[in-house]
């Protein structure tokens, strides 16, 4: 019965959607729908009931209004490069794909801002303003493909957010289609507008508060000078302590990245570099030339004082690019070390780096699975890569357990279950590790204010019985948990 009703409603929606966006932009063929069954978190899949590809704010609003009237859940999708399942659809739901909305609408250099449609890629913004000496600061690793709509939904960061902040620090305003299809502009052109910071809470809400159909983002002048070095250490601890020493010296680098031996080996397998050390630390400084030069000297001295075996300074833009290629290739290169791997995303206070890395090594040993560590060391954002063999069923399960144990370790050290990938479906059931029942209840109230009917990307971000099995609503904490005798994952 219920299934038939769902099919009928989807049929009605498909009909209305065809009238709104044109028949070719509504996909209902199972083969086509399969393309949309997951995002970058590929181990969780669900084929959507329908895919609609609108071309304007009005079309998005009309489709959302139709979903709202028919009680059909919907999820917005940009490039589908997210890593936490934020764009995963529901079988009885609709994917609203924003790939057709990819125009840069305005470039306002005097006021340093760009107006874009949500399907514009992160890198395209920088490319559009680079000839004028500007760039868009947030730089997630996927910046060539990920879209600004997704960046806003996830509050995307990147290697340089240590100094420059996240998407939320650069977005000025957005046109948003709310869960009932109403269209609003949140934020404003001028600073200090009265009223609640609705844009601030929408950013990072993982598509649960509405769909951004237009955004105004700030751009920055390219720094006058950039210096980059890579330092090699005989222990991971020395690398970690060097990070703390740089920060304690009052220096705020543009980026501080670290790789351990396994990550270095992975990168070596796919690039021409010859790095060989227990840990490699990449430090980049940018800003006015004289400031950068004096601070860079200090960083070099700090590396030496912490027993860096070798410090290589990029002498040219090509050498800088080579250092970053090595760093950025580590993810993909992990595929050379094992048949499969999971990317984890956790945060710790940056001073706890050495202890947490020892903890990860111990977990790795206990589970008998190798873990390669690549991380944004400057802000304590770890990306452990758990290596496993997908052909061995118990390894699939163990790798998942190990990945979640690492996240639990981060929380134990006062950190977070996610620094930039988001909660999505992947970590919704881990939210109680970090937040108690009252915290989650308050989150749910915020969500309910934006989406009282629960149709806007449901089953993401917060634990639900559907996702997490017996997790029983928000208010109840099991006595076993309260006594610290056990917890849920």
């Amino acid at each position, binding site marked *: 019965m219920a299934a038939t009703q769902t099919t009928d409603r989807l049929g009605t929606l498909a009909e209305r959607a065809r009238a709104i966006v044109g028949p070719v932009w509504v996909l209902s063929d199972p083969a086509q729908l399969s393309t949309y069954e997951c995002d970058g978190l590929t181990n969780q899949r669900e084929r959507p009931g329908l895919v609609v590809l609108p071309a304007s704010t009005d079309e998005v609003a009309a489709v959302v209004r139709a979903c709202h009237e028919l009680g059909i859940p919907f999820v917005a999708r940009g490039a589908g490069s997210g890593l936490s399942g934020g764009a995963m659809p529901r079988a009885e739901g609709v994917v609203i794909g924003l790939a057709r909305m990819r125009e840069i609408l305005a470039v306002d250099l005097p*006021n340093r801002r760009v107006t874009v449609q949500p399907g514009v890629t992160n890198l395209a913004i920088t490319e559009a303003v680079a000839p004028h000496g500007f760039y868009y600061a947030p730089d997630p690793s996927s910046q060539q493909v990920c879209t600004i709509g997704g960046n806003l939904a996830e*509050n995307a960061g990147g290697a340089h*957010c*240590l100094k420059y902040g996240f998407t*939320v*620090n650069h977005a000025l305003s957005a046109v948003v289609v*709310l869960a009932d299809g*109403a269209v*609003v502009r949140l934020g404003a*052109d001028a*600073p*200090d507008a009265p*009223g*609640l*910071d*609705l844009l*601030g*809470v929408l950013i*990072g*809400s993982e598509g649960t508060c509405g769909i951004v159909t237009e955004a105004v983002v700030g751009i920055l002048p390219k720094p*006058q000078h950039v210096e980059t070095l890579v330092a090699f250490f005989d222990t991971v601890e020395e690398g970690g302590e060097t990070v*703390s020493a740089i*920060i*304690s010296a*009052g*220096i705020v680098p543009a980026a501080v990245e670290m790789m351990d031996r396994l990550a270095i080996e992975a990168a070596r397998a796919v690039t021409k570099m010859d790095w060989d050390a227990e840990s490699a630390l990449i430090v980049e400084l940018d*800003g*006015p*030339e*004289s*400031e*950068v030069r*004096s601070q860079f000297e200090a960083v070099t001295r700090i590396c030496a004082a912490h027993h860096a075996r070798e410090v290589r300074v990029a002498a040219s833009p090509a050498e800088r690019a080579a250092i970053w290629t090595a760093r950025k290739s580590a993810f993909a290169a992990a595929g050379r070390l094992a048949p499969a791997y999971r990317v984890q995303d956790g945060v710790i*206070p*940056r*001073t706890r780096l050495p202890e947490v890395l020892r903890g990860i090594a111990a977990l790795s040993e206990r589970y008998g699975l190798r873990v390669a560590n690549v991380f944004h060391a400057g*802000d*304590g954002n770890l990306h452990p890569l758990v290596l496993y063999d997908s052909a061995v069923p118990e390894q699939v399960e163990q790798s998942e357990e190990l990945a979640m144990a690492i996240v639990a370790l981060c929380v134990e050290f*006062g*950190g*977070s279950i*996610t*620094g*930039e*990938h988001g*909660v999505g479906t992947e*970590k919704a059931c881990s939210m109680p590790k*970090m*937040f108690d029942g*009252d*915290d989650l*209840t*308050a*989150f749910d*109230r*915020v*969500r309910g*204010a*934006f989406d*009282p009917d629960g149709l806007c990307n449901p089953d993401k971000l917060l634990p639900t019985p559907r996702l997490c099995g017996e997790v029983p609503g928000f208010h109840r904490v099991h006595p076993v948990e309260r006594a610290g005798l056990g917890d849920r994952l």
Partner: protein
Amino acid sequence: MGLVEDLAADLGPARVRPGGPDDAIGGRVPAAVAEPLSPEAVAAVLARAGRDGLAVRVRGGGTKQSWSAPPERLDVVLSTRALHRLIDHAPGDMTCVAEAGMPLAALQAAIADVTTHRQRLMLDPPGGAEATLGGVLATAAAGPRRVRYGTPRDLVIGARYVTGDGLAAKTGGRVVKNVAGYDVAKLLIGSHGSLAVITEVALKLHPLPDAARTVVLRDPDPDRAAAFCDAVRGAPITPALVEAAWPEGLVLVRVESTEEGAAAQVERLRGLGPVEELDEVAADALTADLAARAWAGTGPVLAVGVVPDRLADLLRAARDAGATLVARAPVCAGELALPDDDPDRAARLIDAVRALGGSVQLRRGGEDLRALVRTAPEPAVLRLEAALKDRLDPHGVLAGAAR
């Protein structure tokens, strides 16, 4: 029993007293002033308010009550002043956690040990030594340093809060990078205590610079002063403050960097206009004078913001209205002080700022002026704000208003 006795039963007699004339907000004297010692006690006050239909206004240092609309009813002033502990300072992580009633000045003193840490919370809002962290957040107050470091929304990494119906919850965390959960802190910042009582704040700190140098340009021509500010913005300079002040046509630029970096940036500034460098004493004195200037009289004060390329127009609007303006030039946000209560003058100025696409908020002034400043948001925005209020303060006990 009376309200004071009721609250004393909840909190202990030492934490409650009858309200007096000094506690009045918008001319209303509260029946009681409660000073809870813990988030649980905050929740107890709010729970009683919900049961008894009381109106509660949150107060920190009491320096910015005029920034918010006055309450329509007022039974209890909930003072956060007893929540004043520094809970954690992690110098190596450049973060700290403090209770909301801690004065900003006390926090700065506690974390800026010159010999060991040399760090600072880069917020310098109006309100002097009395302003508390919670009040600064609730009013989204920022000062000159926002040019480089942003406003409270850019520096808060987590918070604990008690909703209007007494739910004690947290958002964010203690680490500088974190996307787990809704960023409820963004909603609380600038909410004027209308959604919840902030009880604890986690903040991102920055290092104190090695060297600071300050230059001043004096040019009474709005176009030339604005052109200089624009040139500063376009140059390889990362100033900590760029304050433009009217009527005298003064632009103060302070660079903070390494010794070499600051020296080189001052040289750059000399190339951009006929600037004069101030020694440290003179620079600090002028900076303090500018910070106090808009608040010096007793007349109305407006907060205004326009897009950066309208700075010259904003300076002209101030000149034409005979107003005092002190603005953060690169972000084009600042305070406008009116010389008197003349409603026509105020209306002309507000219209002029609005004509530039700008924003206007009342910081000090009468209710007639507040009515002039108030704008109606889009209906869907109003609905969202009302829905958040309904869900976070379902009994409507918090007598703050975000607009």
